[in-house]
């Protein structure tokens, strides 16, 4: 009986009217974590006025596995393969940043050939990261498939190189404290040179497709403008900082590895908008090619590992060190504290794409929802690194 009474009561309620208008109220929308354009599981709580973004709060942690705690519970070398999983597009540069920090912590020197190999692999990583970023970004703008496939065709060639050298396409685990794991043969270097020699053809073709594309210009120019003052204050690094016209490249400033031996220019943007950020990647790839060509000419023969490094029972002296490199996405740093035991007392990753997201709200305010995806794409995030 009671069920019937309920139904009658429900019938006596006034009928529901058609959806009322919002009348200037804000609509809260949760974008993500499952969204094709969030480059992983990333969520933004967005307050919308019509189609215009009025508030944006990023929500993190869907891929959080407490990488740093695991690093504290593992030996120094044990974390090396795990750094591959941070930014899984650029495992080589992750390895390098970690190896560099541990080398600072323990005072290890690296042989000449190993340093050259590191530069070669880091610049190849930069090429494939930037190429695929451009592909993804165009994909976010609605150019489904084709540009991404163009970019991935080139990326695949570089990943083949990585595979033949380290045994893995993406999770390379290639560098060691005081050198590299395996030597590159003359054939490998010749093949790498061949691929790098052909890379400008791809860039020419790709730039022809994008630089003067009317839709791309309409979607990116003056979208998501970032001022240099805010960029510096918010710790933005990498191509995103240089797109605002700030000349700061850790390869030049710190001169780690053998970068002072190479001649290359730092491309700088002017407006700090999405278009500049996009072009920055294209221009940086040209400079990477120039570095690679110099490295192929200069690379000497010799050992690739410092024989003094103890592989087993590796215990750095008590102290702390912060080492950083210019990863494709920005400043990647590792902060390590040693208490003299085989495990680090503190193992901290300074993830560039996490800190570059600090100003995501500032970039998106006043733009449409569709622009949010483009701006986020131009920040270049990988959730493996953001959430750690």
């Amino acid at each position, binding site marked *: 009986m*009671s*069920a019937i009474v309920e139904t009658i009561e429900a019938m006596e309620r006034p009928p529901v009217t058609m959806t009322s208008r919002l009348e200037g109220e804000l609509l809260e929308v949760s974008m993500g974590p499952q969204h094709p354009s969030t480059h992983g599981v990333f969520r933004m709580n967005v307050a919308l006025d019509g189609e215009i973004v009025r508030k944006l709060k990023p929500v*993190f*942690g869907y891929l*959080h596995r*407490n990488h*740093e*705690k695991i690093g504290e519970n593992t030996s120094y070398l044990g974390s090396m393969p795990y750094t591959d999983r941070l930014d899984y597009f650029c495992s080589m540069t992750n390895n390098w940043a970690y190896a560099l920090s541990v080398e*600072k*912590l*323990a*005072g290890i020197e690296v042989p000449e050939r190993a340093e050259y190999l590191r530069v070669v692999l880091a610049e190849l990583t930069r090429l494939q990261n930037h190429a695929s970023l451009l592909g993804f970004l165009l994909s976010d703008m609605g150019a489904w498939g084709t540009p991404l496939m163009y970019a991935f065709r080139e990326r695949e060639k570089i990943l083949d190189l990585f595979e033949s050298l380290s045994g893995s396409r993406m999770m390379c685990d290639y560098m060691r404290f005081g050198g590299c794991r395996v030597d590159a043969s003359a054939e490998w270097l010749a093949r790498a040179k061949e691929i790098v020699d052909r890379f400008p053809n791809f860039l020419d073709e790709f730039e022809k497709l994008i630089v003067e594309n009317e839709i791309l210009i309409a979607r990116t120019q003056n979208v998501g403008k970032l001022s240099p003052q*805010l960029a*510096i*204050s*918010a*710790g*933005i*690094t990498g191509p995103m900082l240089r797109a605002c016209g*700030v000349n*700061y490249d850790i390869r030049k*400033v710190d001169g780690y590895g053998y970068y002072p031996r190479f001649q290359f220019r730092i491309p700088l943007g002017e407006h700090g908008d999405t278009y500049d950020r996009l072009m920055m990647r294209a221009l940086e790839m040209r400079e990477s090619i120039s570095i690679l060509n110099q490295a192929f000419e200069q690379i000497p023969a010799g050992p690739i590992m410092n024989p003094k490094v103890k592989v087993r029972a590796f215990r*750095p*002296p*008590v*102290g*702390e*060190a*912060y080492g*950083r490199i210019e990863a494709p996405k920005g*400043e990647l*740093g590792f*902060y390590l*504290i*040693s208490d003299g035991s085989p495990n680090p*007392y*503190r193992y*901290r990753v*300074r993830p560039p794409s*996490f*800190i570059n*997201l*600090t*100003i995501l709200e500032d970039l998106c305010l006043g733009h449409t929802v569709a622009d949010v995806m483009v701006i986020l794409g131009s920040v270049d995030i990988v959730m493996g690194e953001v*959430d*750690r």
Partner: protein
Amino acid sequence: MLPLEQIKTRIESAVSGAKIDIVANGGPSQQASLLIDNEHAVAIARFLRDDPELRLDFCSNVTGVDWLDRTIKKTVKVKQVVDAVEKEVDETRQEVIPGYLEAVYHLYSIARKHGPLIIRMRTTDRAAETRLPSLTPLWRSAEFQEREIFDLYGIYFEGHPDLRRILMWDEFEDYPMRKDYREPDDYEYEPTPHGDVLEKAKRHYALRPQLDGAENIVEPLDR
């Protein structure tokens, strides 16, 4: 960049009452740091950022460190009267250094292209007084990183505009990066509203009209 001693004297002359210690680093990296007092931290940080000589406008890395209570054993010679004769006797004393949480900032200068200058702040203990002044108003890059320290170490940053958990979920209670954090036996366990839903559903079943007797029909076995 200027040597740390000079930076220390510069700060002390600019910020009156500032207490600064140089924390030595015995390792080969030679990255010594400045321990600044919490009371003047914001003023010191502002001086470091705006001083024309230093111009540390780029706060690169902000992180926390957990230091547990440490006991140090010391052997001290003590004079004791044994059998009416004064003798020197070795005595081991235990000194307990209380633990604290630490926030470490790595500062660089983009304008002058130098760095890092490392500054650290310490809380008074690990349980009750875990408050530090926030430096987010000076360097926006500390915003997410201080939130992360709050999330994983439990340092409350006073003056932070939006101090919430960032990587762990909001209902999470402990601080996982602390050294004495115990992992739960069951990682997957999380109280969900499922129990309440089930309870409601059961009450709903009880209101159903009586069963029609179909459940009592038994198929003959010998067919």
